């Protein structure tokens, strides 16, 4: 039954060496080096985090800002290689993180669907067959041949959402459950997200919406300063988080 285990994160730590003053210019670096003021500090974004997600499960990650939630998503998304520990992910991953990154304003709606879908790991052939359906779902069929710089921000968001959610992956990474566009589309996109979450794939959900955590997830992880402070039943984890917040 090992195929049921979609995500296996074991003892993952992420650390960076960063300069104390966050220097980012050559001039400043040269000055600081000469004056011997350039000092580095080791910064741990994640410390010894382990968890698994099986097919059909939703694992929620909660914690304060800067606790390492986004870093954890990026590690699972393969964007950041862990400093130590091991990550195994089986199957297709759909990251629903800042949708529409990679859109180019000069390209038409159809061209952006092609490019964005391919960036998300699908093949151009697959995308070619899906352009119409995606445009239709986003309610933008009549606007496919114009550059998206002529779109409103709501239209762009709808196009991004429709493209990102067109396939059902094995693993869904969600950074806050999005609802985009106008009122109608908000309901529609939220419903689609929940439909995807219930489709039997594994879900890693990062959110500040604690009601969503208790109602939608099978397990929860509470991160603090990069370490998992408590894990287990969503109600218990949320309770321990709230306990800390109120003190």
């Amino acid at each position, binding site marked *: 039954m090992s195929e049921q285990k979609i995500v296996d994160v074991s003892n993952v730590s992420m650390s960076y060496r960063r300069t104390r003053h966050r220097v980012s*210019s050559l001039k400043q*670096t040269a000055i600081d080096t000469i004056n011997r003021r350039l000092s580095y500090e080791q910064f741990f974004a994640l410390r010894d985090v382990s968890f698994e997600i099986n097919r059909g499960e939703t694992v929620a990650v909660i914690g304060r800002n800067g606790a390492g939630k986004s870093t954890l998503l990026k590690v699972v*998304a393969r964007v950041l290689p862990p400093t130590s520990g091991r*990550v195994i992910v089986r199957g297709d991953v759909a990251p629903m993180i800042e949708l529409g990154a990679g859109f180019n304003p000069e390209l038409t709606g159809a061209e952006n669907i092609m490019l964005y879908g*391919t960036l*998300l790991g699908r093949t151009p052939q697959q995308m070619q067959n899906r352009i119409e359906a995606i445009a239709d779902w986003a309610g933008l069929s009549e606007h496919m041949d114009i550059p998206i710089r002529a779109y409103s921000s709501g239209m762009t968001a709808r196009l991004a959402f429709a493209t990102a959610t067109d396939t059902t992956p094995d693993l869904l990474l969600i950074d806050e459950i999005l609802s985009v566009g106008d009122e109608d589309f908000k309901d529609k996109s939220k419903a689609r997200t929940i439909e995807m979450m219930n489709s039997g794939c594994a879900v890693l959900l990062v959110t500040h919406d604690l009601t969503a955590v208790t109602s939608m997830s099978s397990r929860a992880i509470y991160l603090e300063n990069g370490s998992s402070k408590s894990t287990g039943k969503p109600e218990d984890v949320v309770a321990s988080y709230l306990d800390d917040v109120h003190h």
Partner: protein
Amino acid sequence: MSDVKVYDSDVKLVPVISQMRAIWENRGLLSLLVRRDLTVRYKRSIIGIWWSLLNPLFTTAVMYYVFNTVFKSRLPGGAPFLPYLLSGVLLMAFFNQGLTMGADSVATGAGVLTKVYVRPEIFAASSAISSAINFLIGMIPMTAVLLIAKERPGFASPLVLVVILCMTLFVTGLALLLSIAYINFDDSRSLITIFLMALQYMTPVFYPISVLGPHTKRVIMLNPLTSYLDVFRSVYGGGAVVTWHEWAMMIASAICAFVVGFWVFIRKWPGLVSKL
């Protein structure tokens, strides 16, 4: 279940080989990125294509006036100056554009690269390829100038493709190295502009190598771009005599820049992506 993609962070990527395989496996994405670059540049029109030729043609016109009319420089043997100059301007534009666009597209690709797993090398390669296509388009007026000057691209002209291939590899490798500087230091962009200007003068774009003294000549011949330019001029036109030594220099520098660029980049990328 054998076709299920598995990501295991313990499986380490092999420098150069893994990266080249990633580019090959994502060739669909690569071609879309090239098409994006060209669409954005040419704005889907013939005028757009001509417009983007204005820059090299105008640069050539200005330099022609300055060096041919004002300084009255002459090439040895009375060879026509215009094809010589234009070939230099076009090849330098290929290099400059591929390098800066490539580094930029990796450095500014942060929006995508920090959210989705895509090898950034694909972005650098796509910029190099679209600069190569731009160069090919520039060869249309170049050919016209050659014909007007009553020179004719010779039998060796298909060898231009070797020059283009080498330059594409050369520029991709260097663009990856430059992107590391771009990401680490905000002010490296202005420094590179100065460096590229110096490099332009160190390449025989508008002067013949024969006017140089022995010491300067040695320095100029050490510049790999000189070998690209000499090979290009000798196989296509523009007037240059090339030695096997320059062919070797061109091919070796292309392979070196590509391998070193990919090698260093794969080592540095995990540290860079957390800075984006």
